[in-house]
């Protein structure tokens, strides 16, 4: 594996695989969050299952964390390598004539997503790990009820956090607008299905972040 990472195509391939994995994760995260709007009881049950089932906690969660770290680290490594490959900067460069803003600024949209992710971890993941593995309370209960839905609602009371999350999801949309079909191109999938895949990718890149924004706003205004 380390051998393949020494080549430019190998690095592209690894970057794309981690991206595809993260896109599947984001989709399942969205579906679970959607239940917080549709059915709080179901949301609580799924959250408790996800937070306590050993396969998810001790196998999938570490893989996810490694995937996230890998994607970011590799993104920054590629950016440094690519900057090194450039010569003197052009006095005039008309990038908009041949490529999208999203495709030229993946490092910036990715950087903002990383900043958002750190805030998101501080808001949700670290308190969850503290409750379960430091305090040792695996019951998922508070005052005789599941605590997950209540905790989620509480987080979206301050408008500044809702605004911050909305900005984070806008950057996620910008990143996905290029990243979705770019990942398929990198693994060598460019064929008769590509046109349809690009359409699906655009829908995915807009629907998922807009959905997350809707969920954040819903809980803010329905507390």
């Amino acid at each position, binding site marked *: 594996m380390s*051998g*393949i990472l020494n*080549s*430019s*195509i*190998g*690095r*592209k*391939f690894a970057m794309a695989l981690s991206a595809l994995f993260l896109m599947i994760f984001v989709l399942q995260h969205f579906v679970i969050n959607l239940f917080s709007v549709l059915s709080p009881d179901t949301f609580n049950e799924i959250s408790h299952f996800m937070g306590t089932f050993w396969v998810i906690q001790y196998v999938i969660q570490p893989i996810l964390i490694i995937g996230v770290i890998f994607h970011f680290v590799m993104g920054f490594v*590629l950016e440094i*390598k*690519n900057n*090194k*490959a*450039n*010569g*003197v*900067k*052009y*006095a*005039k*460069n*008309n*990038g908009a*004539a*041949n*490529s*999208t803003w999203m*495709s*030229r600024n*993946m490092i910036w949209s990715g950087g903002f997503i990383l900043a958002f992710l750190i805030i998101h971890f501080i808001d949700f993941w670290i308190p969850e790990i503290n409750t379960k593995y430091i305090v040792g309370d695996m019951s998922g209960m508070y005052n005789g009820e599941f605590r997950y839905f209540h905790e989620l609602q509480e987080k979206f009371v301050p408008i500044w956090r809702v605004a911050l999350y909305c900005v984070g999801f806008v950057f996620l949309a910008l990143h996905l607008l*290029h990243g979705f*079909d*770019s990942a398929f*191109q*990198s*693994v*060598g*999938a*460019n*064929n008769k299905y590509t046109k349809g895949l690009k359409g699906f990718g655009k829908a995915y890149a807009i629907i998922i972040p807009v959905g997350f924004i809707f969920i954040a706003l819903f809980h803010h205004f329905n507390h």
Partner: protein
Amino acid sequence: MNLTLKIWRQKDSKAKGQMVDYKVTDISEHMSFLEMMDVLNEQLVNSGEEPVAFDHDCREGICGMCSMYINGEAHGPDRGVTTCQLHMRMFNDGDTITIEPFRAAAFPVIKDLVVDRMAFERIQQAGGYISVNTSGNTQDANSIPISKHAADEAMDAATCIGCGACVASCKNSSAMLFVGAKVSQYALLPQGQVEAADRVRNMVAQMDLEGFGNCTNTGACEVECPKGISLENIARMNREYLSATLKG
């Protein structure tokens, strides 16, 4: 038309270059961009100045020598043409035109607008060929069945003239469209199959060694390519490379 030209002047590969302004007058809209550059150089020679060095050869869009970055785009604002086929009718009277060499760490400037693109030659030498016995016993190519679709795709890939516009347009100075086209033109044909794994491994290794960047699929190369080489060739190269690497 009368124009102001902002041109990159650099004495040699070691000198520090700079943009220099020039004025040209009475330029016909029917002139090619290189003919306009000829007018400028005649003007410079007549006034005892050093003419602007630029690459050119066939002036028919097939040799891949001309290599100017005009107003922020490789080969200028027109599509599907090289600089020699770019006509002055694409510009307006009074325009200021910025002219720079193709930029990439792997394409060092030799002088003014002339860059060293030997990195492409070395990539070709690493595997961009088939080892055919040419001693007189060569099999007639027409005796090998090839589907029309494969032949067309291979021919499309083979139209790459190796001008380097893909590298110049890429924000990462990636050469993957060029290498993808060269890998594809052989990978699609039965004659290229025998050495396919070694070819893609060696060409990609040489590409990385030359210091070209990584492809991030912006698609700028495909848009600026004067021969319309498709990104499908990069995807094919990726498949070929991964398959060759997995085979060991």
